[in-house]
């Protein structure tokens, strides 16, 4: 039988949201015990790579109202306004808390925290630590979490299944990567904080671990995923590798330039108005794609396709070194370009998934005992397009709230038949054991993954159309058969990364399926979903959230109303 570990709350994922949730649980109830289960050591979590900053109202010329409306408008009116209201109120408190936990924010002359401009934000409200906010936030949270002895880390444990019995989630089955043994980690509630699934696409800012694990875990238990068709292309990733060049480059005054040396966001109408480079990400990414289509992309033979230039030269070495040192390091190391002297080649790359596990404002999913927070969740803060620097704050605000609610609720939950949960984990252990070194057909993990990437790039890119989205749906269904024909060769139990890649690929396929299904069912253009056969927003028919369910027979699509409030949907222009 499998090893059984018992805790009050089980948190899956040790990034920004997971760590914040863990701390929230033990602060709410110092006697509670938390299992922090992560497939990597928490400081490797992809929160680490966020660069620009985290948004919260801080300045006298700003207001919660303005932050709220910017977010609603950025979401193309698909954000739930009650959620957004709560978010903007909590944001300054959460970031202040992070500051007191030691995050080395950059400072103003008077010693207060400095803020910078960001895309789609009316005023400077993005708190930053040069250009490594994610790194500093993650490390501050991780190091702070070490204070609490009742946060028990299970590092390098890969969760393969939620343990659900009688409509209640009572823990997870996790593979101890080092031993290759399955464990049943039981808790009265489970919080999924595993981030997004950027590795569905070929060009992404996301790291190798971003495989949509939490989304797929919930989806396979019948929990709906919401608004999955909305995926954010960050306008400025390095071509080829997809490495992120932060929006703060434009917040600090950088320009986007086409092959004719023209600052096209100011000379042509892309709907961003006077915001120019500080327009929202969906619009800027589309503008770059249109420039390339119009033949004004920069071409380098045989490499990575056409791209645009991000020009920082006019900022000068001093500003670049003091505000954007990491951008300089990345450009030199990965693009062989020094931004002080040359423009940086950039193209839109997949960055963030607005969709995720459908949760309410408390982070609770449509399954008792299951919560989600951060990019994994869709609490409907971001709607159809997230504003840069809202996501780190989201991890804190909703990570904390999910943690508080998970522990409060876990006390009055009746004990679930533990033996049944353990039996499930046991069966899962058997399944993994059978998978090790399994010979099936001639397919390989990398082969199927590359095809998946191609399908999703073609079908769910910056611009989409019905034909290509529908083709993605059918191609993905066909790819399932190829997945089943993958043969594995690593028979070792110890640190078998082939098994991990195999299970991650399954998660990627599940997530991709929900993205394509959501996309094909939304016959309008809204936020990041730019459908070329339906170029306009259609509030009459599509002002709703999409839900995708996994059922025995396949996927089921449904919708859910948007929570509106004081801001009525109007045409989104800047």
């Amino acid at each position, binding site marked *: 039988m499998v090893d059984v570990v018992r805790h009050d709350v089980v948190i899956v994922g040790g990034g920004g949201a997971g760590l914040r949730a863990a701390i929230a649980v033990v602060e709410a109830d110092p006697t509670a015990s938390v299992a922090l289960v992560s497939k990597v050591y928490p400081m490797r979590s992809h929160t680490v790579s966020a660069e620009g900053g985290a948004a919260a109202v801080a300045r006298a010329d700003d207001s919660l109202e303005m932050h709220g409306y910017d977010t609603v408008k950025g979401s193309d009116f698909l954000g739930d306004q009650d959620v957004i209201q709560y978010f903007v109120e909590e944001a300054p408190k959460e970031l202040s808390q992070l500051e007191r936990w030691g995050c080395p924010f950059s400072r103003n002359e008077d010693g207060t925290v400095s803020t910078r401009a960001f895309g789609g934000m009316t005023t400077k409200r993005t708190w930053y630590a040069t250009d490594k906010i994610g790194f500093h936030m993650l490390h501050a949270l991780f190091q702070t979490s070490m204070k609490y002895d009742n946060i028990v880390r299970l590092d390098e444990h890969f969760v393969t299944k939620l343990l659900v019995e009688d409509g209640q989630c009572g823990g997870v089955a996790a593979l*101890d990567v*080092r*031993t290759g043994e399955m464990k049943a980690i039981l808790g009265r509630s489970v919080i999924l904080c595993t981030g997004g699934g950027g590795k569905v696409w070929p060009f992404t800012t996301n790291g190798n671990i971003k495989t949509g694990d939490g989304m797929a875990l919930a989806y396979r238990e019948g929990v709906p995923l919401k608004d999955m068709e909305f995926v954010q292309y960050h306008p400025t990733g390095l071509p080829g590798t997809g490495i992120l060049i932060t929006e703060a480059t434009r917040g600090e005054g950088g320009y986007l330039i086409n092959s004719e040396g023209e600052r096209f966001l100011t000379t042509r109408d892309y709907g961003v108005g006077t915001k120019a480079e500080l327009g929202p990400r969906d619009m800027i990414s589309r503008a770059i794609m249109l420039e390339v289509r119009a033949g004004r992309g920069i071409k380098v033979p045989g490499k990575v396709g056409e791209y645009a230039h991000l020009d920082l030269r006019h900022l000068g070495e001093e500003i670049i070194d003091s505000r954007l040192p990491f951008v300089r390091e990345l450009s030199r190391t990965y693009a062989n370009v020094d931004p002080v002297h040359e423009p940086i080649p950039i193209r839109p790359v997949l960055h963030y998934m607005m969709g995720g596990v459908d949760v309410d404002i408390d982070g609770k999913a449509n399954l008792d005992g299951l919560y989600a927070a951060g990019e994994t969740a869709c609490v409907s803060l971001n709607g159809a397009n997230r504003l840069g620097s809202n996501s780190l704050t989201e991890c804190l605000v909703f990570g904390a709230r999910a943690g508080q609610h998970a522990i409060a609720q876990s006390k009055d939950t009746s004990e679930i038949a533990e033996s049944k949960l353990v039996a499930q984990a046991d069966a899962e252990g058997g399944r993994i054991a059978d998978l090790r070194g399994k010979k099936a057909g001639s397919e390989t993990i990398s082969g199927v993954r590359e095809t998946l990437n191609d399908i999703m790039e073609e079908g769910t890119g910056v611009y989409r159309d019905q034909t290509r989205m529908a083709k993605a749906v059918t191609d993905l269904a066909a790819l399932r058969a190829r997945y089943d024909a993958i043969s594995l060769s690593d028979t070792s139990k*110890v640190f078998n990364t082939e098994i991990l890649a195999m299970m991650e690929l399954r998660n990627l396929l599940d997530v991709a399926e929900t993205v394509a299904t959501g996309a094909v069912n939304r016959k309008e253009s809204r936020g990041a979903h730019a459908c070329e056969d339906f170029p306009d927003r259609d509030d009459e028919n599509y002002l709703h959230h999409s839900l995708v369910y996994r059922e025995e027979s396949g996927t089921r699509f449904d919708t859910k109303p948007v929570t509106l409030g004081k801001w009525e949907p109007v045409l989104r222009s800047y």
Partner: protein
Amino acid sequence: MSELRPRLDAMRPSKPGSTRTADPRPPDQFPGKGNYFGYIAFGLGSSVMLLVSMNLLRSIWALMEGEAAFRALMDSFGHPLYVLFHTIAFAWLVWVALRFFSLFPKTQPFRMGPFQRPADGVLVGGLYAIFAGATVVVSAILAGAIF
């Protein structure tokens, strides 16, 4: 050279790990090659200093015993082996001093009271100046120009 190994428990967790591990290797090229050579040579510099200091003590001792004893000792220093030793010791210790200078600036706090730590070059330059000044003074004393 016999195989050099780190202590097997160098980075081992307090509780044994859940699977069998292979023993750690020492840092590559340790201790003879690459950057480690400088480190080891710097450390061994203290032995050289010890030997030189012992000779210095012997000289003082000889002085206490009178001029004849001191002269005898001084004459013995003319032996080629002693000349070789002092040449090597001189070069070695000058090098130790210079390595010390180059490693000195970052050992200092970034701020001292209201003052920022001077640029590395300024600190190293200062040490060189002190070194040069001391050399001049000592040389002058030895040459009998002062005192």
